[in-house]
């Protein structure tokens, strides 16, 4: 059952200095022309999937980018079209403060969006300027207010390890974000991605490189402050007021199937789901011994896909790896399936190793959950779990 749908909007008004994701910076008439062309293909794709019955069970949808809000009125139209095929209980649009007007917020709510994820990043103007954001701190807070006024659930993205950021300025950003009262907060440590302007600048000026110790402190500090303010950490980077977890993101971490629509959007289907939709996904069947197929759309027209096939054993190891991103960790049922697929001994060894290294701990309900150490050193933990995919 495909329960989640992701739609990608590869346009922005300007590229941020740290971003290596698929998006083109366009404005005015050039943006209009490119967006119209792109959306035509995107909507056709939504309709094709809808016609094939693939969207009927979608419970969460997420329009990401890029900056979906640069689409203006086209964005509520897109939301509306998605709603024509399914009735998701959660439908998120990513948004940047400067392009989320009160009118657009209202139109989004009207069209059936339930939630916006705002790229706030920082509430210090100098830090925002350093990473090439187009908004100020004040502008970000006003956007939060506009979204709330429209009746939308609001999430704020924050980043730590930004050029010029200090422990003090991070505290101010956290306090400001909490005061704005969003329903959900995400905290991401900045990583320098190869080829980005920031990575190039950091090559010449190593001071721009994020200080990992400071980032670790910032992440821990955010956790303290947000927990104190009533937000529960439920995933590596995510905090929510009770009942406001992002169900779409949770789907990614818990092995649920999802469809990706648009250039460079990723999807994941079980082998039977893939075979049922293969005519729309390049035409090749999953093949023998394949339990799960991951794909990324390569072009605007959905004619070309990058496909990765996973065995049952790999799929389960992946579920363990992803499950460890969740604060609640993985349950006994998944562990039992892992033991069956990878062998009692391998799973036992990986779990023991993670316990010995202090990365996980057993919870009273029989779940295996990451410790604070396992949270901050997630790669160690994920690596151990993914290691179960390989034969000994």
């Amino acid at each position: 059952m495909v329960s989640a749908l992701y739609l990608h909007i590869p346009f922005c008004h300007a590229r941020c200095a740290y971003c290596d994701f698929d998006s083109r910076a366009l404005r005015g008439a050039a943006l209009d022309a490119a967006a119209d062309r792109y959306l035509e293909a995107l909507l056709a794709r939504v309709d094709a999937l809808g016609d094939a019955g693939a969207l009927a069970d979608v419970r969460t949808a997420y329009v990401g980018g890029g900056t979906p809000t640069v689409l203006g009125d086209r964005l509520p139209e897109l939301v509306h079209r998605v709603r024509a095929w399914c009735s998701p209980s959660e439908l998120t649009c990513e948004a940047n403060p400067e392009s989320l007007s009160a009118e657009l917020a209202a139109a989004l709510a009207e069209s059936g969006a339930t939630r916006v994820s705002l790229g706030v990043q920082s509430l210090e103007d100098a830090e925002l300027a350093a990473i090439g954001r187009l908004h100020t701190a004040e502008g970000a807070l006003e956007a939060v207010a506009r979204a709330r006024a429209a009746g939308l659930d609001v999430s704020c993205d924050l980043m730590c390890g930004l050029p010029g950021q200090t422990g003090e300025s991070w505290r101010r950003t956290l306090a400001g974000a909490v005061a704005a009262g969003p329903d959900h907060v995400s905290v991401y440590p900045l990583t320098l991605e190869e080829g980005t302007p920031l990575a190039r600048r950091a090559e010449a000026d190593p001071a721009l490189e994020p200080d990992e110790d400071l980032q670790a402190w910032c992440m821990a500090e955010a956790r303290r402050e947000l927990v104190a303010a009533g937000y529960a950490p439920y995933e590596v980077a995510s905090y929510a007021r009770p009942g406001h977890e992002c169900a779409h993101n949770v789907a990614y971490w818990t092995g649920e199937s999802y469809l990706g629509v648009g250039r460079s959007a990723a999807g994941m289907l079980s082998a039977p789901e893939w075979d049922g939709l293969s005519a729309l996904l390049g035409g090749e069947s999953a093949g023998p011994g394949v339990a799960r197929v991951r794909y990324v759309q390569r072009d605007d027209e959905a004619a070309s896909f990058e496909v990765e096939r996973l065995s049952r054993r790999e799929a389960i190891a992946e579920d363990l790896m992803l499950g460890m991103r969740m604060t609640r960790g993985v349950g006994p049922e998944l562990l039992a399936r892992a033991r069956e697929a990878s062998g009692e001994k391998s799973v036992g060894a990986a779990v023991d190793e993670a316990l010995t290294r202090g990365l996980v701990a057993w919870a009273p309900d029989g779940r295996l959950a990451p410790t604070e150490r396992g949270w901050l050193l997630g790669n160690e933990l994920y690596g151990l779990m993914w290691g179960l995919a390989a034969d000994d």
Partner: protein
Amino acid sequence: MATNDTSHIRNFSIVAHIDHGKSTISDRILELTHTVEERDMEAQLLDTMDIERERGITIKSNAVRVTYDADDGQSYQFNLIDTPGHVDFTYEVSRSLAACEGAVLVVDATQGVEAQTVSNANLAMNANLDIVPAINKIDLPSAHPDEVKEEIEEDLAIPAEDAVCVSGKTGEGIHDLLEAIVMLVSPPSGDYGAPLKALILDSYFDEYRGVVATVRVFDGHVSKGDQLTMMQSGEDFLVDGVGVRRPAETPVGELGVGEVGYVVTGLKDPAAVRVGDTLTYRDRPCAEALPGYREAKPMVYTGLFPIDNKDYENLRDALEKLRVNDPSLTWSPETSVALGFGFRVGFLGLLHMEVVKERLEREFSLSLIATSPSVDYHVYRTDGTMLEVRSPQDLPDVTRIDHIEEPFLKAKVIVPPEYTGAVMQLAIEHRGITQDMIYLTEKSVEMHFDIPLAELILDFFDQLKSRTKGYASLDYEFSDYRASDLVKLDILLSGDEVDALSFIVHRDKAYQLARGLCDKLKEIIPRQQFEVPIQGAIGNKIISRSTVKAVRKDVLAKCYGGDISRKRKLLEKQKEGKKRMKQIGSVEVPQEAFLAVLKVDDQ
């Protein structure tokens, strides 16, 4: 050629300063004589090993036969013998030159004579070769061939009226060069009817044919079915075939007097065939072996350990296989607490070490750790006995050492006069003792000094090159053993001594090196789950310290739109990186940490 007539044979090598165009000229000669068609040309065709091509250096000797139809209407057999170009391979160079009657000395028309031109010309003249000067790169606008001719006469004392102006790039003048080789290089002499006397220049191992030796015949002749013996090693064998390289191996009926080619020995023991040895008939040997044979003696010893201990046997097999091309390679088993089972391997020098390690890793898919280089120390114990120590781990307890002696070299540097100060300074920094300076010409000075081998092997050659802007050339030979105040510097990770990181060093330099090593290791060793103190110690005394901080955060950041594959690939890449590290106690140590001593910045 069943005859004494060698008048149509010319054996020569090409020598030059680096980048003066030796390889391009070789390539043009192969092209012009239709040995290799243009479409098959790859730059630097003669350098066959990947490593040679990548680094643009020649490590192994090579001999190619070309046929040249000269203007006099005669057809000539040219044997073009390529020689190694690094100080580590001085012996191989001398053997290659011994196989030639002539040398083409290439000088860049824009750069003129440089220090290496001088030292190479000296080598060629010492070998009594006929020299054909070739002024290269005359296609460049800044070429000044007339001045370069003057330099050749003044600085090298070589008559330059015969110098040929060529362009390796355009091919201009190559025809004239080939004519000059015919005119100026003497044909070989020898007696076809005499017992075989042939010099081994090089050899390689072929799985099916055994050792294949490259030889130069001085007297007699050799063909398939001959029963031969090697005069130094005493090994007998039946010739399984002879041939020449054009450059592909081409069988011929026989190799006659004066000719260069290969002999298939069928021998399965690589060590039996040594560069410099003399081949002769088993039942009718020549009176005496060719002069100049020398057991290739290693100068430097490093430990080589497989990262995965399961590869120990594979490493030994791989070393055996490399030795066939490289008889100078020697080794003995070594055990390290930190690294497990491996070998202490002797090398001609550090470049040789790097090349061997790289070949072992590439050609035999091994992942190896090389430890700090050491020389052969003579340790005199309090009981009066002497112990040869090639690994810091083998050094006895200080209380049982009376004194230690280390090998000294006589080093010879040829350099333009303006750099003599810089060279002297460098020598002093490396505990060298300047003996004298001789003006060879107005533009080159020969400096002699005594220097500990241990100092020379580290970075002396690179430093010499950089401080003299590449002008200096270096030659050295063993002098004697001398007593020095040497100590063992130990490195501790997380409080535990790591034997593979120990180093023998002069006491006066120990503190500086210990500081440098601790700082370098701090850079090389990645942050771990726990803090890792790094300490340098002499005996029980800690003399330096640095700390690798614990990693606080290592987590995948934002996962855009559920693109899990991408994140998983990052994890896998991280894991690959870890495989290349050695777990020592609880610390993951990258391969390069064990050679950190080579990377300590000079203060």
